């Protein structure tokens, strides 16, 4: 589906439409969805009375901010050598595309996201991490 078609679907958002198709939140008895934000007496803090089910996971991916050493040594070395932003991005992408994995994605993500806080760096990232590179990040397929 072309982007133009997708965009046309999204246009009602500008007018603030797109709430539930049949009932507005006010019609479904929406009271205090968060009791903490409501004046009054609240309770139910005596804890779960029922035996817990076996531990299971829902496959939740969390990207926390690593403390202190978020920048891997090879990237630190580049920074210390005054490498350009382009060189740092290329080095990160080369590592990630030569051995694509969740671990290398986490690594390249942390670097790109920190650079992507500014419009200028976003332009640089977008130029280097083009569609072909993004495909390699996802699926492998060798170096750029």
């Amino acid at each position, binding site marked *: 589906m072309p982007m133009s078609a997708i965009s046309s679907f999204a246009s009602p958002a500008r007018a603030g439409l797109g709430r*539930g198709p049949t*009932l507005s939140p006010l019609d479904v008895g929406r009271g205090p969805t968060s009791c903490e934000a409501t004046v009054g007496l609240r309770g139910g803090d005596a804890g779960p009375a029922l035996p817990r089910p076996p531990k299971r996971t829902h496959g939740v991916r*969390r990207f926390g901010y690593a403390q202190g050493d978020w920048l891997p040594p090879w990237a630190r070395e580049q920074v210390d050598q005054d490498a350009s932003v382009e060189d740092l991005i290329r080095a990160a992408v080369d590592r990630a595309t030569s051995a694509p994995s969740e671990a290398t994605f986490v690594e390249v993500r942390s670097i790109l996201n920190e650079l992507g806080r500014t419009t200028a760096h976003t332009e640089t990232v977008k130029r280097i991490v083009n569609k072909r590179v993004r495909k390699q990040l996802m699926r492998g397929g060798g170096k750029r």
Partner: protein
Amino acid sequence: VSLLAAAWLYSGPGETGSFDLTGLGTGDRYAPIGDGELASRGLVNSVASATLDCTQADINLAIFSNPDYTGSFVQLSKAAGGEQDYWHSGPAQSALLMASNNQGHSEDRVSFQDLFRAEWDNFLDQKLSGTNVSREGYPLLTWQMFPQNDRWLSPDDIYLRIHQPLHITMPWYWSDYSASVDYNVLLFVDGSGLLNAWVADYEWWVEPGAKAGKIGDQLDPEARAGMSALQTEINNKLALADLAGPFSDVYLLPGSQLEPVGTTVFFGDTSTDVTIVLQHK
């Protein structure tokens, strides 16, 4: 394939401005993007464009009006395989990247409303019969995702949430009170591949007033006792529903998505419904 999905969210139109890159590994279901992460990228209420890429599952990026993955939302969805660009305007207080329709697995999808609304009304009316407490309007059947700072709920779990406004009838010379009760329910697949429900906790609220304490004292044991009965009720309903396992996973999608939505953009509200998705082994 090394990743299931990647999402680039931009503050500017046409993939410009600041951005946030997130993704899902092959075993992941959700990647929450909280208000803190959005704020750190200048993306709160300012997600103007996005690019989604996915491999072996459909990918869905829901952008919510509230910071706790609730409220009205816009969902950008891409069917498995390839990349798609989107533009967006409107609130963005939190976002959630969700994999669905994983290749190699079939799914059953049911509406929380359709499955449980009538059951809840009957259940509660029976419990309240003969008391001075009655249902006040409709229940809110919604979800609670990754609750933070909650003693009884896990930040790594996803819950169905039942919120029911109540009316407390007082003797004629006193004014009536408003109140409510909430239950958070965890769905899980047991070792036999069967779907089960666990009522994780209960909450109640009474509006301020001289009688609020006494009402709360009466409401608390009833609400607590309701946990076990409710769990039995839900599990009986699940057993009777046409949900043939064995299943390998159960997960939730916001709003009503009873069929895979493909590549599209659609709007919803977590207060209207939640879709329960059962992935077959």
